[in-house]
């Protein structure tokens, strides 16, 4: 698949007055009460909602049985009144649904799907199986976390213009605060391709399955949370061994909150070997641009990145340019995909 040969299916833009679906394909809401904040924000955006029947069910750490979560997903996806399907949160459990997901149903009713973390387990498979542009951005419960996150969310979901040049969050807070430099060049270069990516734990979990990530000619973004550098190394090494990263046009490693030595509270193998060092050793030799530190996924500042649209990544000694060149949404609902 060359970037020119692949034409993504774009969902209709989310507009004031639309109805969105709230579902929990992974874990349940942290606290039922916090749903009210999300509903208030939907109201503020002029959006109505329908809530999945099983939103507050529970099976182990999942929001109800696979059957229950599938039922909500399918019934709301098929609902013609729904413009966007917005998982309330990630957690765990979405990949368990994949063998029973009705991809034909999704292709027949293209619409917005936005989330991150465990939702990566839906974003990549759905994008690859149907061609639909899916959105790696905040889950519903996090879309109003701060101005940066919210603005990029609106730019991606509620506009038919390309997101354009991606900026960094402006530090409005305490001048004494320590922020890791947001854009570190691991390998210089310039690449252009359609976006794909998500949470590394999920990307790794799809390897060797029919939903395995296809990185060919793509700008690939990868992020995770609370995984030690050696755990990140393990998952990236898997992608390297599978020949995935060689095929990409560029790689963006996200902020990766808590992915520092000692950050996982699980298995600490090193206290003095940073994620950056690991990335330089594993990815520094690639002939494509590799950058580290953009605000993706598990950080309070969160971009919304549409899977399947063209983007440019340029990394030089003087800086990193990341531009999303193509709009993700269209004005009118696309016709049925043959």
């Amino acid at each position, binding site marked *: 698949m060359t970037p020119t040969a692949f034409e993504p299916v774009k969902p209709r833009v989310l507009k004031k007055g639309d109805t969105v679906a709230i579902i929990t394909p992974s874990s349940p809401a942290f606290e039922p009460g916090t749903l009210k904040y999300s509903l208030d924000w939907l109201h503020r955006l002029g959006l109505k909602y329908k809530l999945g029947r099983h939103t507050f069910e529970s099976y*182990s750490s999942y929001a109800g049985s696979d059957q229950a979560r599938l039922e909500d997903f399918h019934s709301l996806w098929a609902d013609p009144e729904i413009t966007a399907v917005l998982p309330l949160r990630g957690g765990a459990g979405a*990949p368990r649904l994949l063998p029973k997901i009705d991809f034909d149903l999704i292709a027949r009713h293209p619409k917005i799907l936005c989330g991150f973390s465990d939702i990566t387990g839906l974003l990549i498979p759905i994008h690859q199986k149907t061609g639909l542009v899916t959105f790696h951005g905040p889950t519903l419960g996090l879309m109003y976390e701060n101005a940066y996150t919210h603005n990029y969310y609106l730019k991606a979901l509620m506009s038919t213009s390309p997101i354009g040049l991606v900026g960094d969050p402006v530090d409005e807070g305490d001048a004494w605060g320590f922020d890791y430099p947001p854009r570190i060049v691991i390998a210089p270069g310039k690449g252009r391709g359609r976006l794909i990516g998500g949470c590394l734990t999920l990307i790794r979990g799809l*390897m*060797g399955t*029919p939903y395995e990530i296809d990185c060919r000619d793509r700008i690939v973004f990868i992020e995770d949370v609370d995984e030690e550098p050696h755990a990140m190394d*393990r998952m990236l*090494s898997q992608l390297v*061994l599978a020949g995935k990263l060689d095929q990409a046009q560029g790689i963006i490693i996200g902020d990766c909150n808590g992915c520092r030595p000692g950050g996982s509270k699980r298995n600490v193998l090193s206290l003095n*070997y940073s994620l950056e*060092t690991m990335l330089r050793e594993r990815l520094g030799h690639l002939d494509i641009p590799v950058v580290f530190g953009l605000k993706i996924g598990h950080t309070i500042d969160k971009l919304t990145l549409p899977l399947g649209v063209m983007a440019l990544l340029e990394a030089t000694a003087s800086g990193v340019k990341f531009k999303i060149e193509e709009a993700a949404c269209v004005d009118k609902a696309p016709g049925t995909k043959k």
Partner: protein
Amino acid sequence: MLIKPRALKSKDRVAIVAPASRPARPSIVARARRIVHEMGFEPVLGRHLMSTHGYMAGSDDERFSDLSQALSDPSIHAVWAISGGFGSLHLLDRLPYESLRQNPKIILGADDISHILLAVYKKAGLVTLHAPNLDRIDNKEIFDRLKKALTSTDHLHDLVHRDKFLDDFCYGPVDGFCKGKIVAANLTALVSLYGTPYEPDIAGSILLLEDRAERNDILDRWLTTLYISGKLAHVAAVGFGTFENCDSRGAFNMLSFEELASDRLSSMKIPCCFDLPFAQSAESFVVPIGITGTLDTAKGKLSFTESALSKD
């Protein structure tokens, strides 16, 4: 064509290597050397056992030079990992698979070494041994068992679930008696090979899985990978080893891995049982990867129907 390495004889040379992380203390190296010596073999120490590079026992090149030298040197008859951790994955693309096919030898270890065992089995067709790393050997019983496993061409000892109190107690949610080739793996390591050229074929196999220090839902994630790949449906049976220090991390509403795994396998009607004496600890039995065996999940008993090693 499956290749079996030759059983060890007295005075054979055994290389001690650290392809992943380094052993925790120098005394472990001295002790490992002594253990190999006491077994009647000549220990040959890797040059970089105590090196450090991040979380690994030296740079990739240093670890590779120790490991590839041990694997390629015809005077070395077995290669035994001293410790696990992380780092084996970096070396897989460069291992001397062809030379191992020509000059097969015993390779044993566990934890991160599972990557190497599975890769060598896949790429060289050589039987490898899932067995405790040298730093985990701490009692006479395991010492004797390992010595016998390395020197004998008899069928290896059965693995039987043994309850300390109840005789013949075994928790097997799906009963069955199955025969197949044995694929033994650390679950995290097995999934790390998925989608790579080193992913083992598990169709028709008796799949033996173990892991250590992981949360139940993370283990379920990796079992889910096997499930959604469509490959789990084709295994003959699954035997779970001991999952040392794996739990819900205090979350009472999180199901045990036993429940998550048996829900999954019951719905797929795949015979399975839990708590086989197979993992990374000293109590772990030797499990050869690639040979044929039978698993009786009602009794919790794994038997081998052929030897793991050849006479010459």
